């Protein structure tokens, strides 16, 4: 909210510098988000007197003016038609920079020197374009800065109001707080209105048919209205507070709204049938056109302001098109009412309308201020000479709203909660300054009645907050919670995910974090079949854009997007990334399953180009190895791989299913080249995605030491020739089934096919490790086992020795 300091000072004396005021307001819960000085923008513009105005010798529409600023006499070329000798005008001196970027320099215009510019009201941002320069009051002294001459200076504070303090959404509301904070009285002048007009009773009849929704309705009447622009001071105040000036009557209602926080409505009285106001709830599917020219079908409980025949305003929300103030308005009816917050909220929501007024009514305004605000508006009509008031105002308030319920406050509780030691006097002083009524009810108890404008205060805890605020949060000493020692609840998923992150980082993968919502196209790109849960993502009802409209069912799409981004942004030669995040799947029962996934992507070269390492491309065995390292690092010695996966996004023949024991827990492989192409990848993209929930289910930190042999190991190489169709896994499994206790390890160290190997065959070479737990092996012993193994493999797989 924008708050004018000068306006504020009409209601409370502020004797401290504005910076200090801002700091103290911030520290009492009204964060000052900005301080704007109004005035310096006009500091190179002065009052000048036109001494002489002559036609320009070389231009019909220009004049050459000799103007005097008190100190110097300057020649100014001007194009406005209304310059006359003897006038006081606003002169922009050389060096002036206008908001439009225009810089005033000494220059020659059609051969004549011009040493400044005579300004129009719109150039000065203090009025509308009117075809001429601004003519100032003739009593002004030349040389006076324009901001001082026109009294334009002000300071505007941008107050960040919290939603609970709508009572401060007005100058007077803030003045109440500032008065309490600075221990100053609140100065609200009493308004006296002229009583020479006809009695208001004969002018309007008020009939409240919905007293619950409209407990209080005040009205005023003025005729002989001249609709015109408001005076400069009023326009400036409104504009400094972010409200556009319209005309004197509308401006008055807005001015009172800003000052009192009470929304007013002005009707064009002539348009009201039978001089009658009826406040009632809408009837069946009534329709109504608001002043923004939108026709609404009203919900049946909408509160309407009607005349004898038809609705004229949507109470507290917006006026009607036909009864609004217009240039021809001569008589106005001013309305100031208190409407039930729930009623306004319900109608606003049903119709989807939110206005400044409706939001205030919804939050709750002060029912005791309804008439005062109307009086203020009436007084302004007189002050602006905008029209003549009828004598008296209508105040229809048959059943005054009860005062707010009293709250019992226990002083020791206050101190215990805050960590302070305040006595009843201090507490009473703080609360009284906030217009709360304090009655002691016992040595440790007070009864507090909040003022009608404090809707936010209804329980002891609200009072505790007010006491803390008034005493100052900085007065509360720092202490530390006294707690009983207790073990934290272990969080396995978190521990495992941190471990997995570190393993992947050590394997060269960088962590990414992507939005949980994504483009449905991204999901479609992965080609899930229509019966796959992943093809039916959870939709957002109100996404920011189509590209963020569905909750992801897999992380892979995001990683592909990251690849595409990096290929475009930096033509990266390689990318190794992973993410551990939740995906969202719709279940058969219509519920949503949140599952955690761990996915990775490897692309491009293995290493950054360096003298010391080979620069080969990543292949399927890198990603497979990475998954195995990860799982073994997480203690899963039982992890294993099976060839083949029907994931639609993988290149056929490259899918590898990943198991922990017998439990399927994910997949790795090479992305289908067609999909890779869609993401602008021109070499194979390797991916994995694992079910993190499964991994957590089976995770165990348990490890058991197995004794190792201290006798020397003997290594022998065994190069075999086998049919190409026999897989490495088959050979290894067969070796495992050989089950000789001296054969400890068999690692594939070479794989070859091509020259010197018969077509249809391949060579696979194992390094075998033989070792006994009891003794040093002799060559002879090793040879025996080695030969036996070879015979076994011949029988089982038909291998030959290479």
């Amino acid at each position, binding site marked *: 909210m924008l708050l004018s300091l000068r306006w504020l000072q009409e209601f409370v004396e502020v004797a401290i510098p504005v910076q200090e005021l801002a700091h103290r307001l911030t520290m009492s819960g009204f964060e000052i988000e900005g301080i704007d000085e109004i005035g310096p923008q006009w500091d190179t513009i002065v009052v000048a007197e036109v001494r002489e105005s002559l036609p320009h010798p070389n231009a019909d529409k220009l004049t050459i003016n000799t103007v005097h600023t008190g100190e110097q006499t300057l020649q100014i070329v001007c194009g406005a038609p209304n310059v006359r000798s003897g006038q006081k005008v606003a002169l922009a001196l050389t060096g002036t920079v206008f908001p439009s970027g225009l810089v005033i320099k000494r220059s020659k215009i059609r051969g004549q020197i011009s040493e400044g510019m005579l300004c129009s009201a719109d150039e000065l941002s203090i009025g509308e374009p009117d075809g001429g320069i601004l003519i100032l009051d003739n009593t002004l002294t030349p040389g006076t800065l324009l901001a001082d001459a026109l009294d334009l200076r002000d300071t505007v504070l941008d107050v960040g109001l919290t*939603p*609970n303090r709508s009572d401060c959404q007005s100058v007077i509301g803030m003045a109440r707080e500032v008065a309490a904070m600075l221990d100053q009285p609140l100065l609200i002048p009493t308004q006296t209105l002229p009583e020479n007009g006809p009695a208001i009773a004969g002018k309007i009849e008020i009939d409240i048919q919905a007293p619950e929704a409209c407990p209080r309705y005040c009205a005023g009447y003025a005729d002989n209205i001249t609709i015109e622009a408001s005076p400069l001071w009023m326009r400036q105040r409104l504009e400094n507070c972010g409200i556009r000036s319209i005309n004197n009557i509308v401006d008055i209602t807005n001015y009172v709204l800003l000052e009192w926080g009470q929304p007013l409505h002005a009707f064009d009285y002539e348009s009201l049938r039978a001089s009658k106001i009826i406040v009632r709830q809408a009837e069946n599917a009534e329709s109504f056109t608001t002043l923004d020219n939108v026709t609404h079908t009203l919900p049946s409980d909408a509160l309407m302001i009607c005349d004898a025949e038809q609705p004229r305003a949507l109470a507290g929300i917006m006026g009607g098109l036909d009864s609004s103030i217009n240039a021809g308005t001569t008589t106005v009816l001013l309305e100031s009412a208190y409407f039930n917050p729930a009623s306004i909220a319900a109608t606003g929501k049903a119709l989807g309308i939110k206005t400044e007024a409706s939001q205030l009514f919804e939050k709750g305004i002060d029912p005791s201020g309804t008439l005062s605000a109307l009086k203020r508006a009436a007084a302004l009509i007189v002050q602006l000479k905008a029209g003549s008031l009828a004598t008296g105002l209508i105040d229809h308030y048959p059943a005054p709203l009860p005062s707010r319920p009293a709250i019992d406050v226990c002083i020791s509780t206050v101190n215990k909660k*805050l960590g302070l030691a305040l006595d009843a006097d201090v507490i009473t002083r703080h609360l009284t300054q906030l217009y709360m009524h304090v009655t002691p009810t016992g040595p440790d108890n007070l009864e507090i009645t909040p003022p009608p404008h404090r809707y936010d205060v209804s329980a002891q805890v609200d009072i505790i907050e007010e006491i803390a605020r008034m005493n100052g949060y900085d007065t509360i000493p720092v202490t530390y919670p006294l707690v009983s020692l207790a073990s934290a609840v272990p969080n396995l998923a978190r521990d495992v995910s941190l471990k997995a992150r570190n393993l992947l980082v*050590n394997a*060269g*993968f960088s962590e990414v974090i992507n939005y949980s919502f994504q483009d449905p196209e991204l999901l479609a790109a992965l080609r899930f079949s229509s019966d796959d849960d992943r093809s039916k993502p959870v939709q957002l009802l109100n996404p920011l854009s189509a590209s963020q409209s569905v909750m992801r069912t897999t992380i892979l799409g995001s990683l592909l997007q990251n690849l595409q*981004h990096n290929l475009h942004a930096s033509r990266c030669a390689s990318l*190794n990334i992973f993410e551990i995040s939740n995906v969202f799947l719709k279940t058969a029962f219509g519920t949503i399953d949140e599952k955690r996934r761990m996915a990775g992507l490897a692309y491009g070269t293995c290493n950054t180009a360096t003298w010391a390492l080979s620069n080969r491309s990543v292949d399927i065995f890198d990603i497979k190895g990475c998954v195995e390292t990860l799982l073994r690092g997480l203690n899963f010695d039982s992890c294993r791989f099976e060839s083949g996966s029907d994931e639609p996004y993988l290149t056929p023949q490259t899918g590898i299913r990943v198991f922990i024991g017998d439990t399927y827990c994910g997949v790795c492989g090479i992305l289908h080249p067609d999909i890779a192409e869609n993401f602008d990848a021109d070499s194979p993209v390797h991916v994995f995605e694992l079910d993190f929930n499964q991994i957590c289910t089976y995770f165990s930190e348990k490890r058991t030491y197995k004794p190792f042999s201290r006798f020397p190991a003997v290594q022998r190489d065994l190069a075999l020739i086998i049919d190409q169709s026999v897989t490495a896994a088959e050979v290894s499994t067969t070796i495992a089934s050989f089950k000789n206790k001296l054969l400890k390890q068999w690692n594939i160290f070479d794989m070859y096919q091509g020259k010197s190997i018969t077509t249809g065959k391949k060579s696979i070479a194992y390094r075998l490790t033989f070792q006994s737990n009891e003794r040093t092996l002799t060559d002879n012993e090793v040879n025996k086992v080695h030969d036996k193994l070879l015979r076994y493999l011949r029988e089982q797989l038909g291998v030959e020795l290479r």
Partner: protein
Amino acid sequence: MSDECATIRAEFEADVQKADSENELYQIKSKYLGRSSRLTAIIKSLKTLPPEERSATGKTANALKVNLQQGLDDALEAMRQVRKTRSITAQAPDITLPGRMPKLGTLHPITIITEKITAIFTEMGFSIVEGPEIELDFFNFEALNIAKDHPARAMHDTFYVSDEQLLRTHTSPVQIRTMQQMQPPLRILCPGKVYRCDSDISHTPMFHQIEGLVVDTHVSFGDLKGLLTILLQRLFGDQTDIRFRPSFFPFTEPSAEVDIQCVMCNGKGCRVCSKTGWIEILGCGLVNPVVFKNAGYDPEAVSGLAFGLGVERIAMLTYGINDIRLLYENDTRFLAQF
């Protein structure tokens, strides 16, 4: 006979002098000390000498043998040293070449900061608790004292997936879920992703929050100040100035916003802190009794403190990141820096 020995010695020394490999030295060894060497012949011939000569000659010959053996060992050792030095010199690498670095990835800055903060609290006995990201309206709003028509709902621009289900706007619902399952005293920390319909230079529609909750019989506002002072001084340094100022959250009362002295300008005032010298860092307060009631705790019997902070903001301040969107672009030129 001693002449003969002197000759052998002179020749030996000359040969050793000429040798320039270990191999040659071994040949010299066999020539002068081998079975068919002259010295061996002299020693073999001793027994044929008359006894009066035998002793003197024997002494001379044996002395020569020891002498030659020693000379040879010394020459060999010297030769080995030369060889080592030569080979070291010959093979000296250009050690200014860069080393072979095992490829390492990096953790995302959000993870790093989250871990840093959770570590501070787990040290103090807090449990880390997580909850669903798609939440029920009840847990995200109603239980937290944000009724349907509550003005505070405007502070939370919410993504909905159905009338009752939404993307959580804060991690506070985890606090309610935890209170429904566990009895006080409670010390929990709830990190996680949260969502709001907001996207500009300082907001992303998804971001990360960490919320903390302490419930016990006598938790005070002073305790809240103490706990958060620990956190912020651990994060930003022991000398960091901290201020608490009144604010509003429906689920806490009294509520506060916490500012730290601007880390960019040390409180002198700069662009980052809008010239105020202070940076808003987190929101906190004493748990509103209504929330205890909604979660099934007796508000008369317990009191509590709660706080919530945005991980992105802390990460941006810690690393000097000037645009929040960098955190979600996942550009390797960004990620590689952490």
